[in-house]
């Protein structure tokens, strides 16, 4: 029996790789990050504490941190709405994408590749066009409204564009591939024999899903929800095209401050606040779901 214990130790032989190549390969990426991420973030940070100068578009650095409080106070409502819409869109996308990814991973057979292409296919059309198309689909003459009216679910006078419903479904629709692909990737990695083993150990279909499939697909769930929630919470296109003025999200406020009111410091402060809030939320989320443990 002692032979068993010795056998495994050798597997973990470590290699010391002193080659400089990995670092050289990092350089282009680091340069890219420095020029297009770190520098802009830094100047955005600087802008966020400036105050308007004499001319329009001229700002003076005064380290006014109250910019943050003012900007936040003036757009609390949109701030909350961004997170609420982002959250709802993420939940809807998860509900649609999980069965889809599951079917592609386990049940699609020879259709697997075609289905994967279909999942990505919407990306061949621009984000803006897709959102406008969604407006058509939900619009007065569109199929959704006519079906709902025929079934008497909504009255003749009710429309569903320019509503929270339209914005949330638009977000869910637009970010669906970001949810589907990571879910597919983690489901596809599950050894089908572990599912057979669960059945062999008296677990029925539902228990197998709850105790084996779902826990093993958690890395995909976490990745998919993050990839959906983060852009959805920061989005402004869907609210612009599909919403009414009462559906504005934080992205719309930032856009307006930058391009319409030319209040750069407030826009910068809001951008930072949004980033910080998302960062805090996802830190809590990943800690809670304990993804590191799973792989």
């Amino acid at each position, binding site marked *: 029996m002692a032979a*068993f214990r010795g*056998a495994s130790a050798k597997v973990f032989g470590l290699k010391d790789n002193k080659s400089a190549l990995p670092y050289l390969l990092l350089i282009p990426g680091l340069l890219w990050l420095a020029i297009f991420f770190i520098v802009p973030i830094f100047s955005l940070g600087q802008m966020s504490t400036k105050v308007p100068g004499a001319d329009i578009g001229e700002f003076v650095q005064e380290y006014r941190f109250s910019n943050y409080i003012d900007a936040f106070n003036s757009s609390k409502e949109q701030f909350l709405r961004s997170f609420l819409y982002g959250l709802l869109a993420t939940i809807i996308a998860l509900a649609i994408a999980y069965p889809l990814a599951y079917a592609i991973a386990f049940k699609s057979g020879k259709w697997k590749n075609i289905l994967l292409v279909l999942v990505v296919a919407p990306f061949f059309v621009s984000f803006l066009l897709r959102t406008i198309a969604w407006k058509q689909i939900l619009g007065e003459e569109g199929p959704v409204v006519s079906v709902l009216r025929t079934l008497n679910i909504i009255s003749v006078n009710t429309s569903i564009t320019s509503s929270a419903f339209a914005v949330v479904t638009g977000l869910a629709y637009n970010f669906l591939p970001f949810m589907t692909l990571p879910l597919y990737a983690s489901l596809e990695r599950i*050894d089908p024999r572990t599912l057979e*083993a669960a059945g*062999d*150990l*008296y677990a029925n279909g539902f228990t197998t899903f709850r105790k084996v499939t779902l826990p*093993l697909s958690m890395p995909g769930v976490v990745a998919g929800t993050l990839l959906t929630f983060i852009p959805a919470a920061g989005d402004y296109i869907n609210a612009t095209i599909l919403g009414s003025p009462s559906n504005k999200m934080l992205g719309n406020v930032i856009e307006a401050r930058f391009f319409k009111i030319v209040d750069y410091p407030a826009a910068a402060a809001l951008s930072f606040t949004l980033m910080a809030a998302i960062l805090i939320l996802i830190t809590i989320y990943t800690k809670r779901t304990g993804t590191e443990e799973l792989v």
Partner: protein
Amino acid sequence: MAVDASTSARGDLILKNLTKSYGDFSAVDDLSLVVPKGSFFALLGPSGCGKTTTLRMVAGLEEPTSGSIFVGETDITDMKPYRRPVNTVFQNYALFPHLTIFENIAFGLRRRGITESEVKTAVDKVLNLIELPQLATRKPNQLSGGQQQRIAVARAIVNRPALLLLDEPLGALDLKLRRQMQIELKWIQTEIGITFVHVTHDQEEAMTMADTIAVMNKGKIEQMGTPEELYDSPKTAFVANFLGQSNLIPGEVSGSDGDNLIVDLFGTKVAVPKARSSARGNSALVGVRPEKFRIAAEGKSTHGNVLTGGVVSDVSYIGVSTQYQVEMPWGKEVMVFEQNDDEEEMLRKGAKVVLSWEPIFTFALDGSENVSAGSH
């Protein structure tokens, strides 16, 4: 209900006319067999012979095209896998990577509504049985192959199934570990007394562990018996060649002498016990295992069946024995294993030799058999 798994009628595993077809191809072809309760049974055959498909049908992971499966009196043919009194040790183990070893083993028990303390007792007991109690809190990927293998066995036997199915369970282990696990599995089987049905393509593994071996080929059972029966009295060329090696020499049955058949091999008459002959007509394949031959330089005295006129065409010394290829007068080579247990000098390539062996060590197959069927 699955809860019954430990209490349901235990008994023999009975397969009746079991068939699994994929289109025109029959992976398992009208297979009938009885595995006695409490035995260690091996399904042995080359890859693609239908042994794994048979096992998966018993486990409920494949649906038979026709036929039925019984455990004792219970027909389990259409039972869902999770209701069968059967557990499986999967190839590559299929442990749950997200659960600890303890939870892996407890998985089946927890599905059956047993109290926490009973689960703990049962898991601890089986971990002690396989001598790995210290691994309870680890995850599968922190274990060596041999350890994972034993956990896979523990996870199955902890449920006390009527039947344990093992699908090439040692295939992923290196040779030394495999030998050790063979002995250990056999020991576990004797210890707990559950029926083991073991699928393997490794004839040595099957012979080491099993009480009864069924040799499968092309979806059918070629022959079933104890390892000794299969080795000493194969009934088909496939079995003769797949289990160990055989020299099969074509001849004509020319008469009979008491308990022996007399067969003419290219002009030389040899005796074959009638009890070990499955020749139906006049033509027969006379089979001699390589280690049953005695080899001597021409002119030495011999007894038993004798074949003269051989010329050594190849010699390999492999320690315990020396393997000779001997070209016979009829142009074919035979294989001879000679134990290195005497002072006799090794015969050189080109030496003229006489082969002899005791009639009792001869078997005969029907002449219509394909000489090279099942050769490695």
